[in-house]
């Protein structure tokens, strides 16, 4: 069964990874998005993430359910609040019997999360504050 979490707590990558381990799966693909220092010439100091919580959680369920229905396991966590450089903002993990599926579904989940889940970043860069990306 999928595990989904949006909260201000730091993302514990190892604990989330452990939720994906199971004798029935041979391949586990994870994506972790961290706060990057440079985007071209723009230097980021920190990021604040906010969410429309109940809707964001519903949207994650809509993403996870069809992948789980194919027999895989899905773990997604997104952090909100204040994040410093290299802090994990998002974890998306898929465990599946076959690795090709795990790669495809993990990338689909992060791509779709970035379009369909109401979470916003407010980036404090050295020169300005920027919403979005």
């Amino acid at each position, binding site marked *: 069964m999928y595990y989904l979490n949006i909260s201000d707590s730091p993302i514990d990558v190892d604990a989330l990874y452990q939720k994906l381990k199971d004798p029935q799966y041979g391949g586990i693909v994870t994506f972790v998005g961290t706060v990057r220092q440079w985007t071209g010439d723009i230097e980021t100091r920190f990021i604040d993430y906010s969410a429309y919580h109940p*809707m964001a959680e519903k949207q994650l369920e809509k993403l996870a359910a069809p992948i789980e229905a194919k027999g895989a396991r899905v773990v997604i966590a997104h952090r909100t609040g204040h994040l410093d450089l290299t802090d994990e903002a*998002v974890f998306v993990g898929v465990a599946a019997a076959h690795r090709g599926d795990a790669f495809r579904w993990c990338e689909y989940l*992060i791509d779709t*999360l970035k*379009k369909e889940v109401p979470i*916003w970043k407010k980036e404090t860069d050295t020169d300005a504050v920027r919403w979005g*990306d």
Partner: protein
Amino acid sequence: MQLHVKLFAMLQEQLGDVIVVSVPEQPTADQIKQAIADASPNLRQVIGTARIAVNQEFTASGPLDVGTDDEIALIPPVSGG
């Protein structure tokens, strides 16, 4: 009909948690956005790129069967991940 519309991100920073707008019965999402933009013309561009959610679901085009009990939200382009 008056609707309470939840705001998020830069719109929440500029306009507060909720904006109250007057719209026709069974408004379309575009009519709701138009009413918000009319109240905040300097934010017209970002409001234009936002989507309307009703009861935590994105809406399709066409008239929305919404009343004052429904949870309406204006969702600016998301940027999680």
